């Protein structure tokens, strides 16, 4: 379970990226985070990966307040969250197969296990014959699939896809969303950040709307939303955390 509890982020130049944002994401849930550019969607991902610390509030991943993690604990956190970045972050001189296997390499898996898992993901994402190619040889839609496959390789509990349909035509974008839904059906929690929620076109899906760093709408039932505070209080007692306190803003970058 992921809990954002009154999370704020103000950058050193004074830009307020998030302001008092609270929501929870349950295991195996499919959540769409939407809002215009600059609403704070990418900041959510970066906070979740502990690229930097929130200026205020707390973020829990599986009952652990990630702000309290030591530097040595950050790699373990990041292995739990599969991130599909908006700017892809693919390594241009690594093949598609090598890029997808990156997370498994880091985990120290054997060559055979990596090959098996990569082949499976290539099949799942429809990239079966693309393994030996380099990212520069792929189309936008294919690149997005590689990014998703790479994020899924270490079998994370959560997949955070940041604008996975950003530069794609509608047909390809729908294919990507369909792929993300399939992944969710297989048991992975999916958080998809997009500025264009119309593409999802499914009123049953949960939608979180951000505007200028504030959460302005969450389609989850109010009863569930009100449970955030009780959930956090419960964790505070278990983990011995102190109540939310505004932290001094600093650019502490972890990567």
């Amino acid at each position, binding site marked *: 379970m992921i809990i954002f509890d009154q999370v704020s982020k103000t950058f050193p130049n004074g830009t307020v990226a998030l302001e008092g944002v609270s929501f929870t994401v349950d295991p195996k849930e499919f959540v769409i985070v939407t809002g215009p550019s600059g609403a704070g969607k990418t900041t959510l991902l970066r906070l979740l990966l502990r690229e930097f610390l929130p200026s205020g509030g707390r973020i829990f991943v599986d009952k652990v307040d990630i702000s309290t993690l030591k530097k040595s604990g950050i*790699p*373990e956190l*990041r292995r739990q969250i599969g991130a599909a970045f908006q700017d892809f*972050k693919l*390594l241009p001189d690594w093949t598609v197969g090598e890029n997808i296997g*990156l*997370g498994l*390499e880091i985990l120290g898996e054997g*060559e055979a296990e990596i090959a098996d898992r990569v082949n499976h993901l290539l099949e799942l994402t429809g990239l079966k014959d693309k393994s030996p190619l380099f990212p520069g040889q792929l189309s936008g839609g294919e690149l997005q699939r590689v990014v998703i496959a790479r994020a899924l390789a270490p079998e994370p509990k959560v997949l955070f896809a940041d604008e996975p349909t950003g530069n794609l035509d509608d047909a390809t974008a729908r294919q990507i969303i369909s792929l993300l839904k399939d992944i969710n059906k297989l048991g992975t929690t999916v958080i998809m950040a997009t500025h264009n929620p119309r593409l999802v076109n499914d009123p049953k899906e949960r939608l979180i709307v951000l505007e200028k760093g504030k959460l302005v709408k969450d389609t989850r039932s109010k009863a569930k939303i009100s449970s955030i505070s009780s959930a956090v209080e419960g964790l505070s007692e278990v983990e011995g955390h102190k109540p939310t306190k505004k932290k001094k803003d600093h650019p502490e970058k972890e990567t």
Partner: protein
Amino acid sequence: MSRRSSFTFKHMRRSPYQSLAAVAVLSITFFVASIFSLVTLGSQQVLRYFETRPQVTAFFKDDTELSTINNLKRELETQEFVASVKYVSKEEALSIYREQNKNDPLLLEMVTADILPASLEVSGVSAEVLPQIADMLGVDPAIEEVVYQKDVIETLRSWARAIRLAGLALVAVLVATSILTIGVIVGISIANRRREIEVLHLFGANQWYIKKPFILEGALYGVIGAALAWGLSYILLLYSTPFLVSFLGSIPLLPVPVTFMLAFLAALILLGLSIGSIGSFLAVRRFLR
């Protein structure tokens, strides 16, 4: 070798000129260092050779009894600063004289064993004890004259000391330069792979996973540079052996045994490995905080 380690070779292949420059600079550095090391070791050998030669020669008066000579010899042999004592009779002195002047019959004509004195050739444990031995022999009434190569040894010692000091200073400078060179090259390598490092961090790689290939890269440059330098210096040594043999005369320094050169290779590789690892470790500490 782990897959991650194989990335070291991959990176080196993908920036061949950078790798070539690193290996070239380190080879030259280690080559100069190895030549100086060989010269220093050689000079120590030359000095040791002279130090173990008969250093003090005491010539006896003509009428000295053999028993007197033997008594003195036994007394010398009990001294801890004396390495060896050799008695040279008048007859042996004549044969040595004949051997040394065999090409000059004129010098041999008038000389008989009677006119050559018997002597004791005394080796000390070091050059420092030579005056002590000479003083001890000089007070003996049976001895006519005491001769020792005090100046030659002293000159050699000061030369050897100077070569050793200069060699050490040069090696220290070269080691520092090598560490700096590797540090800069690995630093460039890290800068070139900034994006890759960022991605690795984001996917949960720990510090050691990220640092390992860079430290290996530096160590590898050191080892390759050391091995090449050894090869170059061995070729140079073999090429100059005929000249050096005639220059050194009876000093048994050459040819250098293969076992010594193999031990020297091991030492150089160890040095290269250490320098490479230290240089890259410093770069990694500086650029991958």
